[in-house]
């Protein structure tokens, strides 16, 4: 996962935002506790979303605690910790922490193979650090490790197939989240709702990442599922002309909209609970906002441009 699944702060209640931050801190804490302090860098918005969804489904009981932040001892943070004697909340955190570790390790392995030299060395270094954590996480949740391994394998097959299909490339990530979300519940109806949510959220995440990288991938001659479909192969190795890029990104936006339209029906059917406001904010407002920031405002590029 790639950090695209996050809330739209402008439309959040203050208490929701604080609860969100407290789960984020709680997950950081769980990572440190279960998988060693080096694994904390694997913390992501996506896995925070997964933790929140899991705790909503299991109606986990939580309590707020004020503690010093591990990264900045001068700062006091609120942590949402599992309430006394509630095993399900602790389990949710642990599962989300394991997911952070496993996803990050696979992402690093991917980077070691195809990014630039500096990034490759970077990835190798981090990969070495997470070896122990990975071993432990896969032992704790073997079916999760297996699902992620299968996803990477299927994705590689789809991306190297003779005719590239956007739908087929997005399917492995979609199916991974479908499996992960479905497993959160034992109720038949709920499992179907979660499965649909997972499939289209996973599809959205993969396609969002592909849309985000499209211009850069074409310029550097790397694989991108949209390149062939949108007829960008002829620009390989050069910067996309402004109008071509604009049209391509508008098309990506349409594909993402179509995906969110299918996800919406599942969002409304999610069981209610303490995190309903946060979940609806992320899924209904946060995701469209990311589309706007990345495809229309190019926030990321401007930020990178300044720092150079």
């Amino acid at each position, binding site marked *: 996962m790639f950090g695209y699944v996050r809330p739209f702060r*402008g*439309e959040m209640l203050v208490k929701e935002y604080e609860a969100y931050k407290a789960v984020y801190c709680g997950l950081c804490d769980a990572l440190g506790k279960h998988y060693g302090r080096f694994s904390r860098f694997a913390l992501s918005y996506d896995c925070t979303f997964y933790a929140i969804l899991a705790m909503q489904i299991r109606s986990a009981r939580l309590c707020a605690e004020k503690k010093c932040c591990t990264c900045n001892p001068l700062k006091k943070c609120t942590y949402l910790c599992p309430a006394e004697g509630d095993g399900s909340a602790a389990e949710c955190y642990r599962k989300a922490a394991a997911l952070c570790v496993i996803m990050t390790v696979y992402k690093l392995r991917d980077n070691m193979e195809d990014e630039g030299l500096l990034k490759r060395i970077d990835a190798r270094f981090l990969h070495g650090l997470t070896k122990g954590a990975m071993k432990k996480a896969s032992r704790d949740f073997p079916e999760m490790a297996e699902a992620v391994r299968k996803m990477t394998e299927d994705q590689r097959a789809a991306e190297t197939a003779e005719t590239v*299909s*956007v*739908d*087929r490339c997005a*399917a492995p990530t*979609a199916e991974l989240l479908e499996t992960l979300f479905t497993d959160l519940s034992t109720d038949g*109806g709920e499992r*179907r*709702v979660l499965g*649909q949510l997972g*499939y*289209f959220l996973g*599809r959205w995440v993969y396609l969002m990442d592909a849309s985000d990288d499209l211009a850069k991938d074409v310029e550097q001659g790397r694989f991108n599922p949209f390149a062939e*479909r949108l007829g960008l192969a002829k620009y390989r190795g050069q910067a996309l002309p402004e109008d071509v890029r604009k049209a391509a990104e*508008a098309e990506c*936006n*349409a*594909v*993402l*909209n*179509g*995906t*969110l*339209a*299918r*996800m*919406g*029906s*599942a969002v*409304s*059917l999610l069981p209610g609970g303490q995190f309903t406001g946060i979940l609806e904010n992320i899924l*209904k*407002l946060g*995701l*469209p*906002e990311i*589309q*706007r920031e990345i*495809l*229309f405002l190019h926030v990321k590029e401007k930020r990178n441009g300044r720092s150079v």
Partner: protein
Amino acid sequence: MADPYKVLGVSSTASDEEVKDAYRALAKKYHPDQYADSPLKDLADEKMKEINEAYDTIVAQRRGRQNAGGYTYAGYSGASGSGGGSSFSDVRSYIASGRIADAEQILNGVPVENRNAEWYFLKGSVLYRRGWLEEAKDHFTRACQMDPGNGEYQAALNQAMNQRSGMYGGYNPNMGSMNTGGCNTCDLCQGMICADCCCECMGGDLIPCC
């Protein structure tokens, strides 16, 4: 039955108006139109039924009589395929009952030269159900090209295009992101200038300086 106030998410002291608003918001959320072609339609229908019952109960309790009336939900007849004259009636019934893999197997067995507009439409429907939305759109487009007069194929393509436009979630760049109101400062000035022109035509004047 569960507490009807809890179902609608209002307190039992809420005014009639508040109950009605909560009911309308929920009815909109779970309305069958939002779930046409969705595999979760049955769950939404169940939810809709629950909401209707809760609302009717509250209204009945408050009025002290059984027949509530008011804003009732008018039922929904599922989208029925055109049926008559279809060469793929078995595929259609598989799709309708959610047996997507079986439907796809039959479709894939049809030799390329026998693939007509209906084949492309049904294959598109199968892909759509599976979430392969791009290829679904391509197949619907092909079906419409082969049989331009067919309303069923056109409706499927229109739905796919509407979803891509951001009508049902997502981001629509032509609509100010979170601003759904229709009137901004620019519109106001434009309106004033138009009104001024009209006044001048009739011999009057609204903005004296232009």
